[in-house]
């Protein structure tokens, strides 16, 4: 890692501060402009103007918005994400973290399947370029990408649970048979995208001189494809993998909601409809923070793996 790269990473990290700041201001103001709702929904039938006023005072919602914001940021910098208005005994972090862990595990397996399928499919399509197989392969996977989760889930639940009886519909933990269907529904739509990128990458590598050299020196086609073409074509996939990582912590709203999985996607839907200010803010800020970090991480990993990047790291 040369000084150029370190400087580049620092610049990237510094840019994250104003961007996260702007985002936090916008989301904060937006949420506060919806007047008094969290208190009303919290109290429900017990709503009286006096009780509402007392709670608003307690949560500090009576203060001017800029004052609230400064207070929020001050707490945030000390690691305090605020409290939930729905579950007054828990802090926002206590609510989010266990659910994020559930989503991360499920999302991790889904991501693994996506890439385990997408990469070979992409290589296969690239090698079959010029025949009808190439467009057919990608196109058929694209169909799965076009079906929204909330359409796929009821159909899969009917087929695998009601008709075939292979799995149950209830959530019984991450490592149970019942999670096979949701993980597949999360994984399969992404295959087309990965395959498409991998295909383009393989085709790019196929034209390189070292591939011609490998063929010219009489290596077996299998060796050329696996060790020369595929290995080099995998390099750009680092970006795709790295940038998908923060997404798995954000969970999958529809799949979690429809399968009853207590993950972060479902939590965010509940937090937004309540609304639960501090939980929503924590969700948005935390996931953008993860994303910025993943971006930087991808750049660093690149520089370690591919020496060519280190030389021309001045971009951005």
């Amino acid at each position, binding site marked *: 890692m040369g000084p150029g790269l370190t400087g580049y990473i620092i610049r990237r990290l510094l840019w*994250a501060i104003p961007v996260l700041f702007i985002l936090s201001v916008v989301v904060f103001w*937006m949420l506060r402009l919806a007047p008094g709702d969290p208190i009303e929904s919290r109290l429900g039938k017990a709503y009286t103007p006096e009780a509402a006023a007392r709670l608003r005072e307690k949560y500090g919602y009576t203060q001017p918005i800029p004052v609230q914001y400064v207070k929020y940021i001050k707490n945030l910098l000390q690691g305090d994400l605020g409290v939930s208005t729905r579950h007054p005994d828990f802090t926002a972090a206590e609510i989010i973290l266990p659910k994020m862990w559930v989503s991360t595990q499920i999302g991790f397996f889904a991501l693994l399947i996506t890439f385990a399928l997408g990469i070979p499919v992409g290589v296969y399509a690239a090698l079959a370029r010029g025949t009808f197989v190439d467009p057919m392969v990608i196109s058929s996977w694209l169909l799965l*990408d076009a079906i929204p989760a909330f359409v796929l889930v*009821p159909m899969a639940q009917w087929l695998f649970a009601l008709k075939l009886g292979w799995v149950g519909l209830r959530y019984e933990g991450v490592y149970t048979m019942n999670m096979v269907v949701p993980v597949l529904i999360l994984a399969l739509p992404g295959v087309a995208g990965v395959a498409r990128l991998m295909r*383009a990458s393989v085709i790019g590598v196929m034209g390189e001189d070292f591939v011609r050299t490998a063929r010219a020196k009489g290596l077996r086609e299998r060796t050329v494809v696996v060790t020369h073409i595929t290995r080099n074509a995998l390099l750009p996939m680092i970006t795709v993998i790295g*940038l998908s990582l923060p997404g798995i912590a954000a969970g999958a709203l529809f799949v979690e909601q429809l399968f009853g999985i207590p993950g972060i996607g479902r939590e965010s839907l509940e937090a937004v409809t309540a609304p639960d200010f501090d939980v929503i803010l924590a969700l*948005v800020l935390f996931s953008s923070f993860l994303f*910025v970090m993943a971006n930087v991480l991808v750049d660093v990993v690149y520089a370690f793996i591919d020496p060519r990047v280190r030389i021309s790291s001045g971009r951005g």
Partner: protein
Amino acid sequence: MAIAESAEYFPPVEMARPRRWRTLRVLARKKIAVAALAYLVVFYGCGLLAPLVAPYDPNEQPRPLTLELRKAGPSGEHWFGTDDLGRDLFSRALYAARTTIIFTLVVLLTGGVFLGLGLGLLAGYRGGWVDTLIMRVGEVLGGIPTLILMLAITASFRTRIDDLRFWLEDHTWLGRSDAESLVRFTIIVLATLPFAWIGSARIVRSQALAIRESTFVLSAEAMGASTWRIVTRHILPGVLPLFIVGLSAGMASIAGAEVALSFLGLGVGPDTPSFGSLISQGAGPYTFQTWPHLLLAGAVPVVLFFYAWNLLGDALVDILEPRTQAPR
């Protein structure tokens, strides 16, 4: 469902003008793309002409509402069957197509063309901190879970729906239900906009960056052409082809945003048919077991719509990026 994601793999390609027709010719040779295009023509035709094509009023309920008229399966009278209230699902699907078309058009013009093209050109041509700021904001917006922020925006504006509706009723010629539809529609457009510009802006920017360095831009600058002239006459023509490809690749996710929000009941009002609300009536394994047509009537047309745009976008990317083209 990041709207921006499809934009990642458009490397800057220098486009020459005469290739425009070649693109169409090559496109016509791709059978998949032609099939996709044909479906889209039917979809747009039916959607735009919904009032003429639809056999029934989409909100008309039969009176008296007997048990046989509710959730009836497909028949010669009702091609897609009827829903819980006995309304004709084929007519509702046609009107839902109209909702989708209007929504995508509005978001495309405001988010794609106005914001996407505008910010992309600004970032690419001005460069420097303007460029960095625009692209970093886009990067973060593209990275956070789109749906959650969209939900947050919709939820926080929803409490204002009634205020705005009353205001519109009092100050414009709009009637009660029109005013409410307009307000709800505006809210979901506003919720989609922050994410709709990123993909196209990224494509436009990288193209503009490449073209800015070319000699014809330099000579135009040397001759004292105004910034406006350089951008519109010299940079824009080179940017347009890939910009259009980017738009077509992003169509499915823009339309998907409305469908998802309407599925959650946060989209257009109950009087305006939408694929999202159609699907939500039939979603659920037991409902699907007993009345599969409830889910399929909404799902099939809109899934094919997404699929067609994806296929078309895929074909266009392939044509415009010679590197991945099939040898011939």
